[in-house]
């Protein structure tokens, strides 16, 4: 009997028992739909988190002024502004460092026409934009010249721009920070929330020098609040951390016995933990869903065994008129496989549909990859063969006389 004919026989047998076939298939449909749905939600969540991490900038170290102590009394981290622009410039020279961005910040009142708004003023260098992975929606960033001559120019975050200027493009317009006029040179593209939930679009960036001399004032000349440091690559982060520590100890004249007056934090490490967690969650959801696939497979085996018993006489007749072991085996195996594959197809369609619906309702990115569907399908085919083989082999191994005599 050729292969095509066996497929026809198997298909006919499935069609005769329509209700049973559909019910058996339901196990596969639910299983595959669950796996596809869970994996796409999981991967969507992972991409969501990865996007947040990427928006923070890559290979980032944060250098904070450290705890100082005075006569046994210890002050908390950042209480004294021990870091300087000179420190930032020296760190930028290190071999493992791509760039640094010294930052001073404070809160000030902004106004333009009838609107006013209070937000964080960040004074920094042009490097800040590349280090923090910021891009410009309109206009440009401020330049090195602006930094050197402490010009009153500002780059606005999207939220700040909307609060001050409404829907008009603020580029080229004048507004006031703490009553001093500033020219808007650019507007940042929106980034959304940071991993900690802070709105990253509500900010104003101005040249470091302008901030130090004209807006925030200065305790010590050249001192800064903190600095962002970008390493050259992900695997040089530890080396960068060590080099910075050594350099700052040298520059701040801190001996080994004394406590450092600065702290170096690896932001990428924190982010990668979040990313790993999301990945683990995605796979766990997939694993739980695949249990339902396994249960569906057992359902198929169960029904196929019943079917073999029920059709023992039919098998006997088929053997008497010349069906070989292989022909019977193939027929029953193909019946199981067809349930699996048809169920798998329906399940994949339902899973993709469900994922799409969820993405519409919850506004979350959903990822549907072919590898994912391929994975579910391979799994389904393996289940079909695995759980179909035992009943099929049982049918094919019947002795013709005994099968014929079966009532």
């Amino acid at each position: 009997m050729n292969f095509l004919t066996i497929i026809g026989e198997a298909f006919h047998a499935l069609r005769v028992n329509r209700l049973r076939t559909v019910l058996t298939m339901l196990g596969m449909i639910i299983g595959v739909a669950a796996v596809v749905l869970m994996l796409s939600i999981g991967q969507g969540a992972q991409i969501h988190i990865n996007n947040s991490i990427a928006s923070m900038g890559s290979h980032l170290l944060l250098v904070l002024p450290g705890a100082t102590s005075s006569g046994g009394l210890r002050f908390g981290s950042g209480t004294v502004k021990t870091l300087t622009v000179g420190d930032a410039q020296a760190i930028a020279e290190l071999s493992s460092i791509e760039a640094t961005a010294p930052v001073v910040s404070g809160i000030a009142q902004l106004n333009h026409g009838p609107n006013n708004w209070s937000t964080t003023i960040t004074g920094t260098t042009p490097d800040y934009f590349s280090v923090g992975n910021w891009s410009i929606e309109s206009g440009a960033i401020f330049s090195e010249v602006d930094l050197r001559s402490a010009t009153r120019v500002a780059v606005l975050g999207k939220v700040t721009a909307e609060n001050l200027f409404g829907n008009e493009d603020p580029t080229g317009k004048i507004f006031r920070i703490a009553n001093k006029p500033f020219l808007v040179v650019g507007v940042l593209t929106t980034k959304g929330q940071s991993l900690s939930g802070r709105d990253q679009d509500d900010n104003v960036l101005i040249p470091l020098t302008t901030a130090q001399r004209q807006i925030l004032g200065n305790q010590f000349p050249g001192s800064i609040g903190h600095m962002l440091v970008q390493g050259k690559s992900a695997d040089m982060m530890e080396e960068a951390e060590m080099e910075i520590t050594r350099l700052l100890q040298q520059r701040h004249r801190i001996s080994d016995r004394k406590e450092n007056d600065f702290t170096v934090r690896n932001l990428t490490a924190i982010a990668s933990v979040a990313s790993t967690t999301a990945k683990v969650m995605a796979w766990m959801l997939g694993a739980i869903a695949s249990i339902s696939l396994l249960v569906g497979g057992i359902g198929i085996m169960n029904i196929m065994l019943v079917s073999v018993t029920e059709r023992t006489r039919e098998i006997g007749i088929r053997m008497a008129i010349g069906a070989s072991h292989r022909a019977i085996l193939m027929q029953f195996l193909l019946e199981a496989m067809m349930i699996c594959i048809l169920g798998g197809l329906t399940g994949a369609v339902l899973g993709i549909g469900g994922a799409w619906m969820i993405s519409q309702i919850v506004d979350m990115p959903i990822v549907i990859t072919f590898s994912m569907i391929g994975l579910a399908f391979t799994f389904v085919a393996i289940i079909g063969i695995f759980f179909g083989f035992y009943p099929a082999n049982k049918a094919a191994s019947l002795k013709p006389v005994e099968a014929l005599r079966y009532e």
Partner: protein
Amino acid sequence: MSGQDCTPDQPLIRVENLCKIYKLESQANQPIRHQVLFDINLEIRSGEFIAIMGQSGSGKSTLMNILGCLDVPTSGNYWLAGRNVASLSNNELAHVRNCSIGFVFQGFNLLKRITALDNVAIPLLYAGMSRKESRKHALTLLQQTGLGQFTLHYPNQLSGGQQQRVAISRALINQPQLILADEPTGNLDTQTSHEIMTLFKQLNEDQGISIILVTHEDDIASYSNRLIRLKDGRIIQDKNKCVF
């Protein structure tokens, strides 16, 4: 005596010292041996029409099953058309059942979920023919048997006689040398029985197909040329009769 009996060619079937023992599982893990056939010796030539008779339990069905390659003997030898059946693999046995032997059963044993046409066509499918081709052959054969208008009926829509004709068509479709009929008229009324037997007689005389028939009715057995009587697993009578 039939004409073919005179040609001294190779016998279609030769059975030597054939025994069949069934082992039944009992509670004490000691299998109970139940011997059904004792030292059967038999030679059947091509073109013979044989009736096997005997009371129920005499072993006639077991003998039929062994002759039909549905069962294997416990000991002894069985040559079918010169081939020792014991040496054949399961697949070769399936091939023999498919091409060399046609079965007709008491309960017709048609597949209930497919049409008469498809029932007749199945042996061709197992022989490797395409579905389309096999249906064409089956249709021709059914029309010859006078069942042309019932091809798309399901078995339960047909009368007993019609079902048995479909079953005989199925047995004939691969042009076998031998037809084994296990009480083919057991479920039929007298008139239909005689119609079916006439059909067998025609097949035997016109096409030279060897037929082995199991029955316990004397008037059915009278259609045959040779009568073998079994009792308690032994042949007690084997006589040729001349019907011409």
